[in-house]
Every structure is written in C-alpha cells, then in structure tokens.
C-alpha cells in the first residue's frame, strides 16, 4: 500500500470517531436555554449528586445543562480554560463552583465582562459579580460537626485531625472551623494533625501510623467523607475504637453512620444545593426575584436524623423554590 493509502485508516477512524461524537453531541437542542454547570471533579460523589440535582431542576424548567468538569481533578488552570471555552458557546447562565475561592476570580470576571449571569454555588468565591450565592459555609459546617463530636466526647479527651490537601481553599476553611470549635472545648486535646490530602487511601495510612503513636484516641476529625471512611477502615483493622466525623454527607458516609461506624457527617445537602443553584439561575433568566444569598442550614447527620439523606439521589426530586426561600 502506498503511504497515502496506509494513512487512510487512522484518518477514516478519526473521522468516524468525530462524526459519532458530533452526532451524540448534536442531541443538544439549539433553542432552549442552556445553563453551564461548573463542578470540580469527576470522582467525588458529592459533585455527582449536585450534577444529578441540577439535571432534575433543569428538566422541570425546560432548560439544558452543559457540564464543565476539569479532566484533572480540581485543576485551576483547566477550570479557567473551561470558563473561556464556555463563554464561546454563550450559555444563558452559569452555575459555578470555583475550584479555588481566590484564583478563579478572574474567571468569574470574564463571565461578567461577557454579560453572562453567574450563580455562585456551594463554595463562595472571594470576588466577582454574582446573581446570588447559593450554598453553604465550609467553615461553619466544619465547626458545627466538630462541636458535635466534642459534645459527644463530653468535652474531654484526645483527638487527631486528618487534614485535607494543602493549598485547597476548602481545606483552609474547614481547618479554621475545626480550630474554632476547639477553642470552646479546652479539655479536648489535639494529639496530632496530619494531612490525608482528601484521599481515602492516604487517610487510612496516616491513621494507621497515628494509631501506633498514640494509645488513647477518643475522637478523629476528618476534613471530608472520603478520608473519614479511610479512617474507620484503619480503626476496624486495628481493632481500635474512636468517634469519627466527616464532612460532605455522601451516601457512603450516611451508610456508615447508619451502621454505627461513623459518628456523623456534616453537610448542607448537596442535592438541595444543586437544585436551588440551578433554579436560582433559571429564575434570574425568567426575571423572577432571587435573593443575593441562599444559605443552607447545616445538618450534622448522625444516627438519629440520617433518614432523609439516605434515599438514592436518583429518586429525589427538587423542592419548590418557595418552600426553601421564604421572603
């Protein structure tokens, strides 16, 4: 075969692949309003919940959701690139979870400059113009959940902290929340505070190590559910007991609460936030009133109150806007 003929095969394959992809993508209709939803990664179940909720809200309102997720988890440069690429498509509105509260400000300003309305979802960005902030406060969630743990410990005992990734703005806020809670419980002693990088396997390994160093650990604070679940695995394997709290309220964590392995997980209900964030964007497009802030109450899910949260999210429905936002 000649060079030209040989080259046809990968070329043909590429055209077919692209055509297939285009046909799949062309399922998107042209005349409906589109909402660009920016989430942080593809692996944390929390964000999947948010995306599913947004999809549910969008369906009810007859709009389309376009998902923008960085191919590398939590990548700042990628989210910035995706902002620019989204603007090229001119969505009707944007629902935005910033990968970093400060670094993404120029990105939000790009949306502002393009005249595209943005709803800030879940994690507050420290700058830029928003239609509304719909979400939660990591600092408060961490503080409340830590408080709950310390109260269950009767205000005294030894704790260790498993931190999240250094450099993450979520981590800063959660650590600050933990520290604030500690201030009110002077008889709770922090034996160690070590990073698990928000990863389950690392949190497991670090907890195993800390269990070696400290023979009496009464409570463990983990900065997210993935790590909390790693922590309880380590405790199980070492036949040790401690009260463990996590943050995020993922299904797996709720199940662990149900099973009595995890003391509690704190959250503002990712599904609800996904619904409300999308509905806020839609309302803005329909010229309906949207308050500048919709801050969700924090729930510390423990063995007494998990019942609402353990329904599989595919079955949940978005509530009515008016039931949450009282004027």
């Amino acid at each position, binding site marked *: 075969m000649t*060079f030209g003929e*040989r*080259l046809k095969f*990968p*070329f043909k*394959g*590429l*055209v077919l*692949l*692209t055509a297939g*992809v*285009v046909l799949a*993508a062309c399922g*998107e209709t042209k005349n409906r309003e589109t909402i660009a939803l920016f989430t942080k990664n*593809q692996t944390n179940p929390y964000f999947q919940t948010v995306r599913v909720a947004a999809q549910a809200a969008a369906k009810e309102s007859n709009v389309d959701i*376009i*998902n*923008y*997720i960085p*191919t*590398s988890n939590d*990548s*700042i*440069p990628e989210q*910035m*690139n*995706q902002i*620019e*690429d*989204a603007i*090229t*498509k*001119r969505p009707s509105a944007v629902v935005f979870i910033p990968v*970093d509260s*400060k*670094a*993404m*400000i*120029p990105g939000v300003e790009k949306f502002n400059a393009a005249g595209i309305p943005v709803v800030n979802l879940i994690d507050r960005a*420290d700058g830029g113009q928003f239609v509304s902030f719909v979400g939660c406060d990591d600092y408060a969630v961490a503080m409340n959940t830590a408080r709950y743990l310390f109260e269950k410990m009767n205000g005294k005992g030894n704790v260790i902290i498993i931190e999240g*990734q*250094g*450099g*993450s*703005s979520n*981590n*800063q806020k959660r650590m600050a929340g933990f520290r604030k809670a500690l201030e009110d419980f002077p008889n709770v002693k922090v034996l160690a505070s070590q990073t698990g990088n928000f990863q389950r396997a690392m949190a497991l390994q670090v907890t195993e190590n800390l269990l070696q160093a400290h023979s009496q650990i009464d409570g463990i604070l983990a900065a997210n559910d993935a790590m909390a679940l790693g922590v309880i695995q380590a405790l199980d394997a070492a036949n040790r007991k401690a009260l463990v709290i996590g943050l995020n309220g993922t299904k797996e964590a709720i199940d662990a609460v149900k099973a009595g392995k995890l003391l509690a997980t704190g959250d503002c209900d990712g599904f609800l936030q996904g619904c409300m964030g999308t509905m806020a964007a839609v309302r803005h497009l329909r010229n309906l009133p949207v308050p500048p802030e919709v801050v969700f109450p924090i729930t510390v899910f423990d063995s007494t109150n998990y019942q609402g949260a353990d329904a599989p999210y595919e079955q949940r429905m978005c509530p009515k806007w008016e039931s949450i936002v009282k004027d």
Partner: protein
Amino acid sequence: MGRLARIPGVAFLLVVLGILFGIFAGGFASLPNLLNIGIQSSTLLLLALPMTFIIMTEGLDLSMGAVLGLTGVVLASALVAGNTLIVAFAAALGVGLAFGIANGLLVVKLGLPPFVATLGTLGIAQGIALVMTGGESVAGIGPALPKLYATKWVGIPFSILVAALMYAAFHFLLYHTRFGNYVFAIGGNREALVLAGVPAGFFHVLVYALAGLMTGFAALLLTGRMNSGHPIAAMGMEFDAIAAVIVGGTERQRGNGWLPGTVLGVLAVGVLRNGLNVMAIQSSLQVASIGLLLIVALLIDSIRKRQL
C-alpha cells in the same frame, strides 16, 4: 521527501482536528476562540520548550510543575509586599533558576537519575511553596501584573507574545548557536564533546538551569491569569509538557530533537481540549480522547516509518 518526513504525525492530526472542529464546533473558528487556544497553551509551551532540550539529553524534569507553583507564589508574595513588578519578576526568575541549577547539579555532578533527582526537587519546591503560603493562595498582588497581562500588541494578547518570543529564542539557541550543537551532542554523542575539550557537564547543567529559568517566565503568565499565586496550581503540568515534546517528534534516545514539533504537540492538545469543551463533549470522553490523541499521533509516525 526529507523535509516532509520530518513533520510528525501530530501536525496532520492538528490540521484534521482544526478542520473538524471548525465545521462541527460552533464558535471554534472565531478569532476570540483561536486566541483563547493560544492563551491556554502559552504556559505549557514555556515549559515544553526547555523540556525539549532536557529530553534531547536523555533526561526528564518532573519538578517543573512544583517549581512553577513556587515561582508563582514568590512572584505574588513579592508583589503583595509592595515590590515593583521588575523586582518581583527577578525574584521569581532567581528562585526558578536556583532550582534549575540544583537539578542540573544533581543529575550531572552527582549522577542521580533525572527521574529521581527531579522527583526530589519536586517535593522540596512544593514544600517550600506550602510553607511560605501556609497552604493558602496569595492574592492582592496589585494592578501592575494584571495590567501587563492584559496588554495586547496589534490585538495579540500578552501571553501569546511571550510564548512566541520564547519560541523564537529557543529556536535560535538550538539551531544557530554552539550551545544548540552541544545540546544535540550531549544526548547523541557525548564522547565527541568531551574529546573535543568542551565542558559537556557545564552545558548539561545549563540545560536544566534553563528549565528552571523558564518557570519564572511561566509564573508571570500563570499568576497573571489567576491574579494570584497558588502553590499547587501547576502540579502535573510537566507530564503534559513531556507528552507534547515526545509527540512532537523529539525522541528520548539518540539526541534527536525537533523544536517546531514541540509547538505542534502543545497546540494539538490545546486544540483538542478547547474543541471538546466548545462542543460540550462529556467529560469522561474528553479524558479518553486526550489519551487517544497521543497514541494516534505516534501511531501515524510509526506507520510512516515503516513505509520510508
């Protein structure tokens, strides 16, 4: 056929992707979007250019992403402290250069395998950045850098200008200076250099130092883009740089390098990512496509080589 044979398969893919996206991706072929691709690729190109030299010398630099984080943080911190942009930039360049020289010395003088040496300096750079910032981003850098970053010359944005200038500089270095000859030789035929009395070690270290220096330049672009310094924003970028270099035709053995290929490699990935986003392709498919691009690009080269 010689010149044509030099052009790697990724060039062909770049053209195909450009055409396909131009047809099927609404808005792709607009000037603003094309400029976006340039802006989005510029930081990576600044890392991939010196990486080309390093790979030609049969080395690797895994620390670039972490050092870029550090130089970005140094730049931002210096600005926050009230220094002028020149001074802050000089500080960033200095830190980057220091790490580059350290890498070079570890590899050349102490004979450590480049993978391990730069893995070590990766940790050190990341650690210093985290300690310096306490794990937080550095904001409040003042108006000087944003203003510079936003400037355009005949409509061409600052970052593209920097990338183009750097490419020109590296092209000149590699193909029109003695140093460039040495870079080819260090990878391909080091003994010849040594026999000729050239201090091969010195120039080998210089290759790594150049990479460190370039992270200082890249810091200007990255910090400008985020309007802040962030310790871990660039982690992992070196892998993309290495992939771009290899896909562009530079081979790890035999000191064979083609600098224009590096640009093509960087652009191909930039075009693919941008096009997929503009077409709103599902994220998991995007991830798989990036891998497919790399493999198909070199597959094309493989097939051609069997022919020639």
